């Protein structure tokens, strides 16, 4: 039988085919000595094993056969049928055993009986827009126990058959057979502050700065756009804060008091308009951004969190990192105009002499 699960630390980019992009990029970050919460990855083979259980794969294929992707009602009905069928199919014993073994290893490492974990889809390919349409962006936070993890993993698999994902794949004529997807399981970070950062200016593409958005609590608020985050622009070169805008951060996400899941609470008055990061934390984030960028050799969009417990800076974690694709290249035209010229023509330009083209 193919490998069903592996520790994140042992994954590299080459494993993407078997484990999906998110898990392997976390493995790469660990290899680059970037602080990532420990965890493990469930392979695409585990999903295949699930489909092989009780003829589930055949039933799914039969339900999808001849479906008109534009018939919204029919797609919705089929999606519901598949979800029900999948929910009634047990996670294969071999998969559950591997998840259990890795979960216990995490528990032992974190010295907690049932440490909370985050369970996320790990799609193949880097194109996040496609992954979103394909329903491969499911996330379960604050999941406890090996059983809970298995349930969340099945939830990720089920999300592959959301109505949107079904019609998206149906329109992609080239897509043959069932989709393949891995799942990443990581220890939860109980974030006091979290956010995202770009290793360049998102507006101008200037590579000499790090742009940081940050808000109180777990990262859902910033990522989901529910909170206007504090906005910081720092020089990579000097670590100075070049600009900052402190926002009114009215809500935050915290772990559910029951120990499972998260919920949204109002931020008390005194913290709402206070900066959620200090200079030391900003400095550490810039350092981390530079390390991530250096490791991947490209501009990155990094999700991070600073835990409520633990010593700074050991409590700063990178949750994920993706290449930046959609920014302007820094003043590219102006630079191109200038780099084509010799030094003297540039100096003459300063004095109002337009260079002759010959």
């Amino acid at each position, binding site marked *: 039988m193919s490998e069903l699960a592996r520790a994140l630390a042992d994954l590299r980019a080459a494993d993407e085919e078997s484990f999906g992009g998110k898990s392997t990029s976390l493995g790469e970050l660990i290899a680059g000595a970037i602080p990532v919460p420990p965890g493990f990855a469930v392979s695409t083979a585990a999903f295949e094993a699930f489909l092989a259980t009780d003829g589930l794969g055949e039933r799914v294929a039969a339900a999808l056969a001849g479906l008109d992707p534009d018939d919204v009602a029919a797609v919705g009905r089929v999606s519901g049928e598949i979800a029900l069928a999948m929910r009634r199919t047990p996670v294969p014993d071999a998969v559950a055993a591997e998840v259990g073994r890795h979960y216990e290893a995490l528990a032992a490492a974190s010295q907690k009986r049932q440490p909370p974990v985050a369970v996320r889809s790990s799609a193949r390919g880097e194109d996040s827009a496609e992954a979103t349409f394909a329903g491969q962006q499911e996330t379960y936070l604050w999941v406890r126990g090996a059983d809970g993890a298995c349930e969340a993993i099945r939830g990720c698999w089920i999300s592959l058959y959301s109505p949107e994902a079904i019609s998206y794949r149906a329109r992609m004529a080239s897509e043959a057979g069932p989709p393949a997807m891995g799942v990443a399981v990581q220890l939860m970070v109980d974030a006091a502050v979290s956010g995202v950062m770009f290793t360049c200016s998102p507006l101008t593409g200037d590579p000499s700065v790090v742009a940081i958005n940050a808000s109180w609590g777990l990262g859902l608020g910033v990522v989901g756009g529910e909170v206007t985050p504090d906005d910081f622009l720092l020089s990579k070169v000097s670590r100075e804060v070049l600009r900052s805008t402190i926002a009114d951060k009215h809500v935050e996400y915290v772990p559910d008091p029951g120990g499972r899941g998260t919920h949204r609470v109002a931020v008390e008055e005194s913290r709402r308009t206070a900066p959620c990061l200090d200079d030391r934390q900003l400095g550490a984030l810039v350092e981390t951004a530079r390390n991530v960028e250096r490791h991947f050799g490209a501009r990155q969009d990094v999700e991070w969190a600073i835990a409520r417990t633990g010593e700074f800076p050991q409590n700063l974690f990178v949750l994920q990192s993706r290449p930046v694709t959609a920014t302007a290249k*820094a003043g590219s035209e102006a630079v191109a105009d200038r780099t084509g010229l010799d030094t003297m023509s540039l100096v003459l330009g300063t004095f109002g002499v337009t260079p002759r083209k010959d």
Partner: protein
Amino acid sequence: MTTTTTSAFPSPLSIATPEGCEGWEEMYPYYALLSEDRREADEGRLWFWNSMHFPEPMSAFDVVAIDGPYYALANWQNRVFAIPPAMGIDYRIVNGYVFITPNAVTDPELIGERARYFGERAGYYFGHWDELYGRWREKMNALIAEMTALEVPELATYEEDAVAFEDRDTAFVRVLDAYNRALRMHEQMWQHHFEFLLLGYGAYLTFSDFCKSALPEIPDQHIAQMVSGIDVLLFRPDTELRHLARLAREAGVDASFSNGRSPQEIVAELSQSEAGRGWLEALEAVKDPWFNMGSGDGFYHHHRSWLDDPSIPFSAISGHIDALAEGRDTERPTEHLAAERNRLAEEYGALLDEQARGTFNELLGLSRTVFPYVEEHKFFCEYWFQSRFFNKIREFGGLLATHGFLADGEDVFQLSRHEVGEALEELCLTWAHGGPPRGPHHWPPIVARRRALLERLKEWTPPPAMGTMPTAAINDPISVMLWGITPERLQSWAGAMHGDSRTLTGAAASPGVVEGLARVVRDVHEITDVQPGEILVSTVTSPAWAPIFPKIRAAVTDIGGIMSHAAIVCREYGLPAVVGTGRATAEIRTGQRLRVDGTTGVVTLLDEEPA
């Protein structure tokens, strides 16, 4: 450019004479005054107060320090290098203050013609920079030596034997010759001053523009830090003071420098002991040339050198002694500065792609080649030469006073350079023929009237600009280089004249935020009033003020750019600085509480009135 700001500044001809200052025009040349015959031309242009160089009203003689630089600047700019879009700087004096405007070239054909001259001539200078700069230093040293040696003859009852027996010129010829020679040398100094300045600033600005296009978020400070020199001659005088402070402690004579003592008292006490005499010898050893450092910018006769007025260096020495006593390191961290300079350049270079990095490195190299001149010329020209020149004019003043034409030699600066020549001519004539001179009756009342006028004019605060805001953007490279006058800056001044005066904005010259009490300094003589922990508010700060930077917490100026020496000094001392606010000295009062944010370039006035 919005239409609401086109009438933001007053018409030059609408500016009223302050009460009691009627007749101020008599101190200045006819061509420096506003007049009906040039109304249309003068109202149609934008004039800004050059508070960077001329923060105080001009005395009649000090007009030499307007004409000299503007002859020279315009000659190199317009007639030698033919900088394509810009001729020279025009000026007017209003209520004693100097307003300037650039004369633009707009005809594309003419710009093209000038570009051909410019390319050839500027290219030659950039291509032979080190060699030409080496010659420049020789020329300047020779000029300073000649000015120092220039003899102001005495008018003796009988001419010396050499006149009778050896064909020597008679005294009247030698007096008038020496005076004319002094004026010519002053003009020559300004000629040398501007020979490299425009090209030097231009090379720097090219690098700066390139950095900003490739790295749009790069702070101006980092650009300046990558270029500015470490072993700059201009820092030497202050470095010598730090050494003297350490020496005083080592020799155990530091107690002599206690606060409030005059240099004379300190020297008198030191000369009583062997250790003290040893220290005085060390002082003598560094005086030439380092005490030729100026206490001002050399544009006023009262800007003296440290040799003439030792109160500034002595006050700095006692400041450094106090710092040493508190265990603070007073050495300039040159190694750290050099390492930081190279680290910035390497890191920014590494962020660029290969082609851009090539251009970056070449422009950085050129900027570093030209920058020693940009930083050092001030020591030779504005400080060393100018203090010698004004002292020479004092000698002519002394001659006039000896013969009763003036009550005091210092009064010579209340006469224009032409009037001084006229007075010397009459003195030579009446001394020769022995008849009654008219000068002793004619000049003293003029001097008295002008002294009173200047005192009153000092109370007046000029607007930052007057005339018409140009509808097209001001893109005069010289105004940008020398004064930091950009369209954005003009807009912010225009806004400040009509809007909220609780905050002032300027260029973020040195990062950090502090609050403290303001000390407004408009005259260089007031800098000894600055108390430890105050925020310096001045029209402009110059490197001559370096000794007070260890005392202050932040600096705010009316005018100046990110690469001004003051900005560099603030960064070295880690002090927040906001420069080019336009109106800081007009809006802020000594004792008012301020917040200075050198990271964003905003100054906030926290008190209504001084505490």
